[in-house]
């Protein structure tokens, strides 16, 4: 168990482990025996490993759902629901600003400077960013584009959606937590039968 010490600490600290955040740890976690060992170790702490549907990201959940656990989960769920729209809008904004033909996925790199440069010259992007930055999820008080963008990216880094490989260099890598977010959205959509399509209609295909 000793060799997984640092990994356990990261998991206990609430990190999401994917092949972007920690490739080695992720590889270890994908082995069934390691999962078993870690679960065994975490049992007294009432924790267990949880993975998303396609096993691209791991995090810790409760082993037994006690009253306290449920309370904590309720609080977290409320936060998650609150953060859905700002996160989706951010995804859209990045895709449009950087002129990408597809949505962001784990492993994509975003250069902050490029993002700022492209937003600066475009009034409508600028306005949308302004609105997004003042959303309470990001909660920016600044009027400066530069500060707003930096705050948004910092907040996303804190929430584990982005990874900043070098502290002083302004570029970010999208982590597997984005996959988790998409899974959450898909789950809610399916569960509540929301009228939200994700398959192109026949016309779009032709």
């Amino acid at each position: 168990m000793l060799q997984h010490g640092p990994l356990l600490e990261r998991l206990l600290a609430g990190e999401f482990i994917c092949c972007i955040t920690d490739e080695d740890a992720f590889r270890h976690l994908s082995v069934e025996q390691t999962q078993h060992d870690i679960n065994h170790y975490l049992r007294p702490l009432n924790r267990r490993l949880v993975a998303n549907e396609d096993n691209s990201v791991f995090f810790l959940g409760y082993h037994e759902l006690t009253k306290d656990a449920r309370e904590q989960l309720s609080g977290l769920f409320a936060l998650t629901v609150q953060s859905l729209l700002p996160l989706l809008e951010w995804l859209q904004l990045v895709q449009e600003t950087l002129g990408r033909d597809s949505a962001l996925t784990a492993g994509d790199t975003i250069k902050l400077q490029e993002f700022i440069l492209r937003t600066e010259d475009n009034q409508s992007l600028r306005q949308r960013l302004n609105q997004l930055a003042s959303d309470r999820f990001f909660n920016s008080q600044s009027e400066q584009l530069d500060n707003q963008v930096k705050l948004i990216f910092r907040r996303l880094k804190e929430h584990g959606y982005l990874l900043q490989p070098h502290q002083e260099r302004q570029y970010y890598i999208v982590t597997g937590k984005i996959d988790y977010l998409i899974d959450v959205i898909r789950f809610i959509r399916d569960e509540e039968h929301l009228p939200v399509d994700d398959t192109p209609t026949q016309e779009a295909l032709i």
Partner: protein
Amino acid sequence: MAPVDSAIASNLLTIGAERLALLGKHHKALMQGYLDGFVDETAFSEGALKKLIAARILWRPDEQQPLALRPLVSELIASMVADENRRQINADVAEKLEQIRNRVQAYRDAQYKGDYSVAELQLQRLTEQVHDLSGQFEEAIDSLWHRLNSDFGFVASLDDKIRENERAQKQLRRLLDGLDLLDFNELIELSEGNNHLRKLLVSQLQNQLSSHHSSLLEVQKRLVELLAKFRQQQARSMLINNMAAFLRQHPKYQPADYPNRTDVPALFNQAAIIKPHAAIALDKASERQILADLVRALPRTKATQLSETPAASFAQQWQDDAIAARQQALKTDVENFYLRVIDHGGKLSALDYLAQQQLEWDSEIWLYQIIAEYQALPLDEKQMFAIVRDEAPASSMNQLLLIRDISLGLKAA
């Protein structure tokens, strides 16, 4: 026959070389024509245009149309620069096969007649055709890999990429069908009894084609994977856009309470953070030395001696018997007021009481003391009283409220 042949050949050589030189001579203008889809006629002299048309490099597809490169020339350029937008894939095998059969027949006929130079020439042509056939697949496979490796980056939108991928898969199917047309039993039969033919048609061609076949299958697998990835990306973009639109339209939307279901979905089972802390353990004798070293390594803070300085005395209370007596009288009156409230039961206005008892206190001081007394009460007693302040704004300019009166009552227990 041979001299005529060589005459034709030398004639071909001069014409071909001249025409190829034309390509080189006008390379920039022609390449521009390739990119634009038509050539700028003013860039050429009249003579040059005529030569280019005669060399079948340029043509006019329609009388109203400007001059353009002939399709074969465009194709040549596309293949040279690997321009996947324009590159053509030729999957026609049947025609080539027919030519090979005919060549073999002609070669055998010439051999039978003993015309060895003709036989030699036929064998030469046959070799070329076999290479052509193999090269055709090689070119196609190269083009497919090129497109695959660039993630179909030569088209901009995801929809286009999906269409291009589907087109590539269709081409691939045609190529595989073409390979199926090659019947090696037939080729073995064709090369029966001739070493040259056997080598060319059987061992060499078979080798090449089987490697093409496995390449094509590999490309097919990768194309299907890539298409699945494109579709996934497309689905993801749509999900993001549509969900965002839905949430914008329904700002009050609240999903079900998943954390309190009997079965909490794994996605929402995200445990609270535990931060493991550790401190120095003093119980391990073996580590004492290390700890001692650590302690010794700590930077020492110099003990600074504080000189004694006389501190200002706040303890001295300013006393005046007369004022203390008045203070006590006020306190007693207020206490009486509280007692009256308790006896009376109902609500009592502080100022009314002041007037009623004909007390001499200033109304402001009176109200202050009542509030002070209330604040001084222990919490459980405080809860027994309901204190209501009668307030009015000082002016319309700010939020300042002035207390006009206080009414005190007993709270229903």
